[in-house]
């Protein structure tokens, strides 16, 4: 009696184990799991892409962790992820470090575009303001201290600006938005470039720090006389008013999908081979000057053939079909010329 029970038990166990093993092997053969990590700014569109791509090719499951651009660069260099993502291009030093560690280079693929916009809270002023590059640099350097300063008033003749103190609000957390903003200020002001420079976090000469876009937006809303910068997407989604910025052609431009794409189109013509380019202060009459690419960082050599094909297939899809869903999430799509150039470069992955 006892023996028969234990025998039955054993048969049961074997059956369950076999079933589990079968399941596991089915899972393994069916699903190619690819891991990526990096920038938070493009995370919403990437998540959408990865889930959409899963319906294009159900064998590929892409897992993305939005841990920040710095983390993305670090993890791809360490080799702990299959690809990275960053809002700022890798520096020469980082590229050299990668090459030295792996023996082959890492490739940059621009995917979509974003922008940073100035937002402000001046009691009694509802009109959208026009900012010159000089005014923005002066404000963020802490040199222009009052809203009624001629540098701001001059370009806004229809608005009466109060002599209220300007309170600068910046991001306190390291971010691609800060990189884009400080990159722009570095290009238009030599004083900014030498004193502060461009980075994901900098030593701010003036103002208060808010954590994240929501932290900056919250502080701007609560502080009268405040000016800060947020991602264009954040401003659009939250129906925030934001200012226009004069571009290098002398036009005051409102940031939107077309003016951001236009900045990229101008840059596309003079794009370096490795796509590491800043498109802030881009030439062209319709270009919004504080725009930026965001990049995927893909190793040029992937040993696992299955993974390599999956990543190449995904890149091809993201640069063609994927671009169509970008604008629905308020990301500016890549200009056509750049798309076809990048498609050609996918073959560099081997």
């Amino acid at each position, binding site marked *: 009696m006892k023996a028969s029970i234990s025998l039955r038990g054993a048969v049961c166990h074997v059956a369950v184990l076999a079933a589990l093993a079968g399941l596991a092997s089915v899972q393994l053969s069916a699903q190619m799991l690819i891991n990526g990590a990096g920038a938070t700014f493009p995370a919403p569109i990437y998540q959408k892409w990865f889930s959409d791509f899963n319906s294009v090719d159900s064998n590929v499951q892409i897992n993305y962790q939005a841990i920040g651009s710095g*983390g993305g660069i670090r993890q791809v260099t360490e080799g702990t992820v299959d690809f990275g993502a960053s809002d700022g291009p890798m520096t020469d030093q980082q590229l050299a470090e990668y090459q030295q560690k792996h023996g082959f280079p890492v490739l940059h693929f621009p995917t979509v575009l974003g922008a940073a916009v100035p937002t402000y809270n001046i009691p009694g002023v509802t009109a959208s303001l026009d900012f010159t590059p000089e005014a923005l640099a002066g404000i963020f350097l802490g040199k222009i201290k009052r809203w009624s300063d001629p540098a701001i008033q001059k370009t806004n003749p229809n608005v009466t600006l109060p002599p209220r103190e300007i309170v600068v609000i910046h991001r306190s957390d390291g971010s691609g938005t800060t990189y884009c903003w400080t990159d722009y200020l570095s290009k238009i002001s030599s004083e900014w470039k030498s004193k502060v420079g*461009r980075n*994901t*976090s900098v030593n701010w000469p003036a103002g208060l720090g808010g954590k994240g876009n929501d*932290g900056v937006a*919250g502080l701007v809303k609560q502080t009268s006389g405040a000016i800060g910068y947020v991602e264009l997407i954040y401003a659009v989604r939250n129906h925030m008013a934001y200012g226009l910025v004069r571009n290098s052609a002398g036009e005051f431009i409102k940031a939107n999908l077309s003016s951001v794409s236009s900045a990229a189109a101008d840059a596309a013509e003079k794009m370096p081979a490795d796509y590491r380019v800043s498109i802030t202060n881009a030439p062209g009459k319709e270009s919004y000057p504080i725009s930026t690419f965001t990049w995927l960082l893909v190793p040029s050599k992937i040993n696992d053939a299955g993974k390599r094909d999956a990543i190449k297939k995904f890149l091809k899809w993201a640069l063609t079909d994927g671009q169509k869903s970008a604008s629905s999430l308020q990301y500016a799509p890549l200009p056509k010329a750049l798309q076809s150039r990048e498609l050609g470069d996918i073959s560099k992955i081997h």
Partner: protein
Amino acid sequence: MAATTSTVLDRAPEPRARGFWRRLRAGEEIAYLIALSAATLVLLIVGLLVYQLWISSTLSIHAFGFSFLTGSTWDPNAGQFGALPFIYGTCVTSALALLIAVPLGVGASIFLAELAPPNASNVMTFLIELLAAVPSVIYGLLGIFVLVPLIHTYLAPFLTATFGFLPLFQGTFYGVSFLSAGIILSIMVAPFIISVSREVLYAVPTDQREAALALGATKWEATWDIVIPNARTGIMGSIFLALARALGETMAVTMVIGNTPAISASLYSPGYSIAAVIANEFTEATGNLYLSSLIFLGLVLFGLTIVINAVARILILVTQQKGAA
């Protein structure tokens, strides 16, 4: 001779071993081993933590050494890192938090343990312990959207009008500041002081109270002169717990402190704390020196916690000896 001793020694462990098995069956040894390994594990984790912090921050330690603690520039672009504004901000906000939370917390616990009717006390304690379980990001949001505007419209004008002659309350008040961070921290740490102190006060034997009352002391005299001194060590323990939480608090502080690495005597000015800068900059930090400096900050926070705790403990010892003499 040598042979005999060895045989004696060989034989000796036998009954001990049998005793071990007996006790093992009784659960004694197992309980001992489990408790021992739990305690060792905690020590091991602390050791590993310090080791890892040290290893990961060597680059920064070699580059800056002691000047890391005294430098006040934090410039990732120039590769210049100094921790002083962050250390200052951590100390100021924690001190301010305790300044508010200790009288509030101890007062509340005395009321709950000694004066309030037991049923009301239990209900109130339950509610206070709920406060301790609220996630800190909620406190941060509450701080930025409710508390900061309240301070801005009511408290700050009052403080400026009353104590404006002090350097503590001078300058422009933007809302986010040391003051706001200290106040939100005090709300966060007070529940720890209240719930632990209440338990400690309950643990003081009833005989002590009754003896004092029998000698003609009033209710308050019995509480203040007999019960509190008896519970003193436990109350101090609760304050240490609160201090540790205040020193390490991240989310709530970063949302209301202003995130500006500046040292200013005024509580109105924005500042920065160690935990806040690590949380803010770690994810996007590129470059080895930058990353290593952020980890060094973690080591500094660890050291700061130990130093402050040690100083507080010594202070207690000294005052206790004085009291005994």
